[in-house]
């Protein structure tokens, strides 16, 4: 019986095949890297939500107002802070979109997704600045974050 492997190659003895074989293996490893997963889905969707709320609600579609994004890459975590020029809101007052009475509503899933997908989500007192933290630890589950609503 052979043990299970994620990838097995049989190469001819031809040193010209080495470069391609190595690239192939590295590409496959990259795809399975859970950091890459969490950047691709969790961080991307979370940042999209933060930016659209800043533009739609914070800045109220006003094209003369601006949105500031600050990203900090720490050891093992990425922090993105999004600031709008609006007057803020109370994030605790946003209802749970997964309750049956809210399921058919077209809106109201943005904050929920941020909180589900990122490891930390916090607002400043005023409510016009949100900070998203994505942890890059090997033990993090690939798709859902630690902060639940």
């Amino acid at each position, binding site marked *: 019986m052979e043990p299970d492997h994620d990838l097995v190659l049989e190469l001819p003895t031809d040193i010209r095949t080495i470069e391609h074989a190595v690239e192939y293996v590295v590409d496959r490893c990259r795809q399975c890297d859970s950091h890459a*997963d969490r950047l*691709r*889905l969790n961080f*991307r*969707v979370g940042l*999209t*939500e933060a930016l*659209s709320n800043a533009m*739609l609600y914070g800045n109220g579609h006003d094209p003369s107002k601006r949105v500031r994004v600050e990203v900090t890459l720490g050891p093992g975590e990425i922090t993105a802070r999004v600031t709008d020029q609006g007057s803020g809101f109370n994030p605790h007052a946003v209802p749970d*979109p*997964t309750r049956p009475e809210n*399921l*058919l*509503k*077209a*809106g*109201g*899933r*943005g904050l*929920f*997704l941020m909180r*589900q*997908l990122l490891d930390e989500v916090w607002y400043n007192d005023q409510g016009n600045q949100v900070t998203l933290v994505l942890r890059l630890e090997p033990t993090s589950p690939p*798709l*859902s974050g630690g902060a639940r609503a």
Partner: protein
Amino acid sequence: MTVVDVEGQLIVGNRQELKQKVLEHLEAGDRKFVIDFSNTGYIDSSGLGVLVSLSKKIREQGGELRLSSLNEDLRTLFELTKLDTLFRIADTRDQALEGF
């Protein structure tokens, strides 16, 4: 029967295009819709919102909206938001079309 592919992202910046396309066909009398996500990168909350409101509008006209070919990332978004309970989601486009 209308099958619509979502290419790239379905997010706040482009969700209106999908909405318009489907509503045009609904007004033209189509009642059976499949939205296929084979070529979709990611969906944000406003993309999910468009799917919910289209589904409602189609149902009001006695029609049905089915979704197909969600990759693992997209499936996770539907599960997290419990929207997987709202839609009939097929693994492939062909399965969505079966018996429609």
